[in-house]
């Protein structure tokens, strides 16, 4: 509609959605334009703030105590602790009772699918009992023929890392009942469906019970790869644990990430409740600006162009992987508003692949109002803000900060755009 939106967000990942939710919460009309289903569905669904100490790279328990060690141009330094905490509390509220930790001070140590201890700040309730700082005996279970998770390897790695819990491993074989379904997604979908069926019609859940019943005897907690339903996860987890004498928790996995799909759906529901208008599919191909203000963006609908007008714009298109930064010759650029992107001062890569990589820090430079800076160091447009992975000056992998930066900068930009706060 030839409507003038208060806030137009380009990008539908965590950062863009946080910007939209925060702006809408502050009373703005919001339009989110996103290209396709994003990376949320592949992610672990853990919300980190800062997982590793900036100087040493060691896992840390209290992320807020280390913010002062970050460089001044780091997005967290630009925002300040109060804004980060408010963003986490806001996200906690939007996710309802399915998340833990977002209103705390501490990271919790959880196991990755390889058995590497991972510090997480916010995490789904279904993984909570997998916390490695709890005492007690844990049984990790891998399910054949599902790929990617080997309980014995994970248990060995956790043991080597010296976690307080005693961790054992077992394999169960559900090949007969899973037949051709060798993906975690299909297993989760089947368990969802079985929740709506009479006990006599179910086959997967009884097979799971039979395989786990004797083996889980004597263990306090049983960890399965995250496959316990998508829409009815808490119910599936409860039903799985029912005949056992142990609690059941999920272990985060890579793609296909059932936890990621649930996280994506939760945020999508929050956007619907907030009356945020979404256009998903068309790409942004052009923009209009005058007097240092962006006035509209153009989207491409199979060759037909449509202009979307707004008072404020938020760039949340992601980093090199997400497609928010593009490259021509040896130069990086942002393909939407063409704001400059600085490459690393020296080499792009470190000599050792496992070292911290300089290219991970590339991205758009911003002022303390998150406005992208042009070549002369001034804000390129007064009403444009950049959030999430498109930003430079931080290393999401080495710091364990990707989701936290997305959530906090998205929240701040959305709120400032809607209220006329911080320039």
């Amino acid at each position: 509609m030839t409507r003038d939106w208060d806030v137009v967000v380009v990008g539908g990942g965590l950062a863009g959605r946080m910007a939209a939710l925060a702006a809408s919460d502050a009373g703005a009309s919001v339009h989110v334009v996103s290209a396709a289903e994003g990376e949320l569905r592949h992610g672990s669904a853990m919300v980190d703030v800062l997982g590793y100490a900036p100087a040493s790279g060691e896992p840390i328990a209290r992320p807020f105590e280390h913010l002062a060690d970050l460089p001044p141009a780091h997005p967290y330094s630009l925002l300040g602790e109060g804004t980060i905490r408010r963003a986490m509390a806001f996200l906690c509220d939007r996710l309802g009772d399915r998340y833990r930790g977002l209103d705390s001070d501490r990271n919790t140590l959880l196991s990755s699918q390889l058995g590497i201890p991972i510090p997480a700040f916010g995490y789904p309730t279904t993984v909570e009992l997998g916390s490695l700082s709890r005492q007690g005996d844990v049984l990790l279970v891998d399910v054949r023929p599902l790929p990617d998770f080997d309980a014995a390897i994970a248990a060995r790695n956790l043991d080597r890392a010296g976690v307080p819990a005693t961790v054992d491993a077992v394999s169960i074989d559900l090949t007969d009942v899973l037949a051709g379904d060798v993906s975690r997604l299909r297993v989760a979908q089947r368990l969802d469906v079985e929740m709506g069926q009479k006990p006599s019609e179910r086959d997967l859940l009884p097979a799971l019970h039979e395989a786990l019943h004797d083996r889980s005897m004597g263990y306090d907690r049983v960890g399965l790869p995250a496959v316990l339903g998508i829409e009815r996860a808490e119910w599936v987890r409860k039903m799985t644990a029912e005949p056992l004498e142990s609690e059941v928790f999920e272990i985060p996995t890579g793609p296909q990430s059932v936890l990621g799909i649930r996280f994506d759906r939760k945020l999508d529901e929050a956007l619907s409740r907030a009356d945020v208008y979404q256009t998903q599919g068309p790409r942004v191909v052009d923009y209009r600006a005058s007097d240092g203000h962006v006035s509209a963006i153009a989207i491409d609908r199979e060759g037909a162009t449509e202009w979307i007008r707004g008072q404020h714009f938020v760039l949340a298109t992601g980093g090199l992987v997400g497609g928010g930064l593009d490259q021509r010759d040896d130069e990086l650029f942002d393909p939407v508003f063409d704001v400059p992107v600085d490459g690393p001062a020296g080499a792009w890569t470190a000599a050792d692949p496992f070292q911290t990589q300089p290219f991970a820090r590339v991205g758009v430079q911003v002022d303390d109002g998150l406005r992208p800076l042009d070549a002369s160091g001034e804000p390129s447009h007064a009403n444009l803000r950049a959030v999430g992975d498109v930003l430079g000056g931080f290393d999401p992998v080495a710091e364990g900060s990707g989701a936290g930066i997305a959530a906090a900068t998205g929240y701040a930009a959305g709120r400032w755009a809607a209220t006329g706060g911080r320039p």
Partner: protein
Amino acid sequence: MSDDRDRTLSLRVETDACYQCATCDTVCPIAPVEDSFPGPKFEGPEQWRLRGEDTPIDPSIEACSNCLQCEAACPEGVSLGRLLNETRAEHVRERSSFSAKHVRDRLLANYGRLAAVASRVPRLTNALANSPVVRAIAERTLGIVSTREAPAFATETFREWWNERGGARISDPEQRVAYFHGDYANYHTPAVGRALVEVYEHFGYEVAVPEQRCSGTPMFANGFLDDAERVASFNVDRLAPLVADGYDVVASCTSCSYAIRSEYPDLFDMEGVETVSENTYDALEYLRANESLEAALAGASLDLGTLAYHAPCHARNQGLAQQTPDTFDRVANVDVVDVGDSCSGMSGTYGWKEERYETSMTVGQEMFDGIETVDADTAVTECPTCAMQMEHGSGVTVSHPLELLCEALDV
């Protein structure tokens, strides 16, 4: 090089871009409820990449409803639509053309041909189409479900009305549109077409109603690519000269606009197909982009209370999932409530097939539940077959947004 080899190679452009992330599988409405269906990643990229030259297409492709949520979701822009259409077509070529299923699918796909004859005697057709005897025979011999109510033929088609009316009443070379009504609005819901004409004339557009055939949607969905190419060619030949003359093409059915703007150029190499595709729009989308609808609807009122809205998959794929609730947001005394992002399960001819009926209703359950939650007895959607499913599963009366718009603008 053989034609087959050539086509397989050209599909490599799509399959090579797929890195198996399986986002498509996560949005597919059929895979979670249909055990025999392995999902779009297998049906599309994997079959074309991994299948041996002598290996036939896996028959599970028949369970795909061509909703193409997978295509819209793909982060790499792989045209799942093209791949699945080629898979289906290959399967249909390999299948015996004498099988009852083949005959039934061909009939459903070419429904417009039948409708053209049937609509000449609408009352007789309606009586026959809902006669229990006829329906029982159709189910037994052809596998067309008898539990659904056949769509009624209007006593006056849209084109008859248009000709009776004397065609366009406004002439304006600066703003003109060519209306693609498709078969459904012409034979079954001419009120939608009439609403489109009234609304567009209200905004000062010159409207043309060119000669046309079915958009091809049911042919794509049933694997009859040759039939689809024939109608596409007919339509492009009629629309291209109008586009060259400054007309934009607008469609009232989101599957028609999706076919013309996305499936035609993806699948067919024919003259004019690109320009027609680039100048085709959904009718409401076009008005929202070009007219100040918000101002026009200021002070408007529709005494309809709560309406349940379902976004058709093919509207969603064009990025139009929220346009209808948004359009009526400021209209007084009506509340258009989106009942969620699930598929209706109807998918054109899919829900008419006896062996798909149960799947169709299972997929639709989320939408039925949504409508029940909203507690509305009237509803709105852009797609005529989604509307059929809403009426069948929820007992609601369904309008098209253009009809509501016509009423709200009081034209």
